[in-house]
C-alpha cells in the first residue's frame, strides 16, 4: 500500500471520527433533554401516585428505582429464556422488501469497510486469542434462517440472514461458556453485549449474508450478529471485536436506559 493512499484513508477515517464525535455530542444533548423531561414527569406523577412532596431527590430516586426494576427484569428474562425454544421462521415470500435500514446514524454515515483488510478480534475468556479473516469465517459451516427482526420501537421486519452459528464459533475458539457475557464492539462505534445462554442459542448467527448474498453495508458488512431471540438493538452490525467476559459490558443504548437483556 503506497503512502498516498494511506494518507487519504487516514483523513477519511479522521473525518469519520469527527462526524461520530459530533453525533455523540448531539445525541448526549438530546438524551439529556429527554432525561430532564423524564425526571420532571416522573416526579409529578410519582408525587401524585405516592402523595409525597416534590423535590429533586425524589426524581433521582424514581430513576434509580426504575433502573433497579430494569435489572430485576433482566434476571426474570434470563430465567424465562429457554435455549431450545426457537424463533418462528418464515417463507421467502414473507421477507420484508425493502428491508428497513436502522441505526443511530443516517445512511450516509454507514462505515465503509474493506473486506480484504477486515480482521475480527477475539478477546477475553477464550483459548485461541487471535484475529480472524473474513475468508476464514466464510469457510466455516454456513446456515441461514428467515426470522422476524423486532425493534424496541415496536415495528418488525422479516429478513433472511446466513452465516456461522455463533455457538460453533465460540466452541471453536475455546470460549469459556460458563462466562456471563459476550460483548461486541463495532466499526460504527456501536457496542452491546448479550448473555451467554442467548449467545449459545442455535439460531444465533455471526451473519455474513442477507437474503443469500453478501451482507450489504447498510445491514452491517462484513459481519453482524443476528439473534432472533432478542430485540434489534442487541443485533450489532460491522462487528470488529468480540470479547467473552464476566464483567458487565453494557451497551450503547443500554447505558442510556434500554433494558439490557432485551429478549423477545
Amino acid at each position: 500500500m503506497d503512502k498516498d493512499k494511506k494518507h487519504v484513508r487516514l483523513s477519511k477515517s479522521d473525518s469519520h471520527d469527527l462526524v461520530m464525535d459530533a453525533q455523540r455530542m448531539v445525541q448526549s444533548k438530546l438524551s439529556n433533554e429527554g432525561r430532564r423531561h423524564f425526571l420532571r414527569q416522573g416526579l409529578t406523577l410519582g408525587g401524585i401516585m405516592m402523595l409525597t412532596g416534590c423535590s429533586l431527590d425524589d426524581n433521582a430516586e424514581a430513576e434509580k428505582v426504575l433502573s433497579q426494576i430494569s435489572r430485576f427484569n433482566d434476571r426474570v428474562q434470563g430465567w424465562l429464556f429457554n435455549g431450545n425454544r426457537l424463533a418462528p421462521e418464515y417463507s421467502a415470500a414473507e421477507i420484508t422488501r425493502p428491508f428497513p435500514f436502522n441505526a443511530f446514524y443516517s445512511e450516509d454515515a454507514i462505515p465503509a469497510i474493506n473486506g480484504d483488510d477486515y480482521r475480527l478480534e477475539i478477546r477475553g475468556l477464550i483459548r485461541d486469542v487471535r484475529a480472524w479473516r473474513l475468508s476464514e469465517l466464510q469457510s466455516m459451516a454456513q446456515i441461514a434462517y428467515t426470522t422476524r427482526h423486532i425493534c424496541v420501537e415496536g415495528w418488525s421486519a422479516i429478513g433472511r440472514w446466513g452465516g456461522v452459528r455463533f455457538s460453533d464459533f465460540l466452541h471453536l475458539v475455546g470460549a469459556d461458556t460458563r462466562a456471563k457475557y459476550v460483548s461486541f464492539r463495532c466499526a460504527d462505534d456501536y457496542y452491546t453485549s448479550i448473555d451467554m445462554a442467548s449467545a449459545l442459542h442455535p439460531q444465533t448467527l455471526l451473519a455474513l449474508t442477507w437474503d443469500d448474498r453478501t451482507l450489504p453495508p447498510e445491514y452491517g458488512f462484513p459481519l453482524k450478529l443476528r439473534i432472533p431471540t432478542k430485540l434489534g438493538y442487541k443485533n450489532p452490525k460491522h462487528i470488529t471485536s468480540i470479547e467473552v467476559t464476566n464483567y458487565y459490558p453494557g451497551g450503547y443504548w443500554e447505558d442510556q436506559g434500554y433494558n439490557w437483556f432485551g429478549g423477545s
Partner: protein
Amino acid sequence: MSTPPKILETIQPLWLRLCHWINAGAVVLMVMSGWRIYNASPLFDFHFPKGATLGGWLGGALQWHFAAMWIFGLNGLVYLLFNIITGRFRRRFSRLSFAEFWRDSLAALSGRLKHSDPKHYNMVQKFVYISVVFAVFTLALSGLVLWKSVQFAYLRQMLGGYETARYIHFYSMVFLALFIIVHLIMVVFVPKTLLTIIRGR
C-alpha cells in the same frame, strides 16, 4: 349462611377497594407510558400528544411500562383470586341476560336507568364490568406476547402472531380508555358510588 350483619353493610370490601385504587394508579402509568411507546412507531396516522405521555423518551417510557406492569399484573391476579375465592364474581355477576342488557341499555340512553343501589349492578354495569375485566386480561396477554414473543410461543400463536398482537394490545387499550371515560362520567352522575369505593359503604 350466617354472615354477621356488620359485614353485610359493607358494599365494597377493603381488599376490593385497595385493588381498585392500586389498579387505577397502575393503569394511569401503563397507559401514559404506553402512549409514549406507541409514538416511537405509530400503528396509525396519529401520535399521542407528548404532554399526555410518560417517560420523556422511549427508553424512559419502557422503564415505566415494565415497572408498572408488575403492580398492574400482580394486583390484577389478587383481584381475580379474591373475587373467585370470596364468590364475589358469582354474587355480583350472576343471572346475565342479553334481553335485560338491551332493556337496561335503552333505559340508560333515555336517562331512566336505576343506578342508585350500589349493592346491585344493573345489567349494563354487569356487562360493562365483565367486558373491561376481559379487556384488561387481553391487554396483559397481548402485552406478554409483545414483550416475549419467542418465549411465549403458544400465546403468540393464539393471538395471531407478533404484529396482530400489537393491534390487539392497542384496541384493548382503546376499550379500557373509553371505559375509564364513561366510568368517570358516571361518578359525576352518581357521586355516592365514589364513597362506596373509598369508604366501602
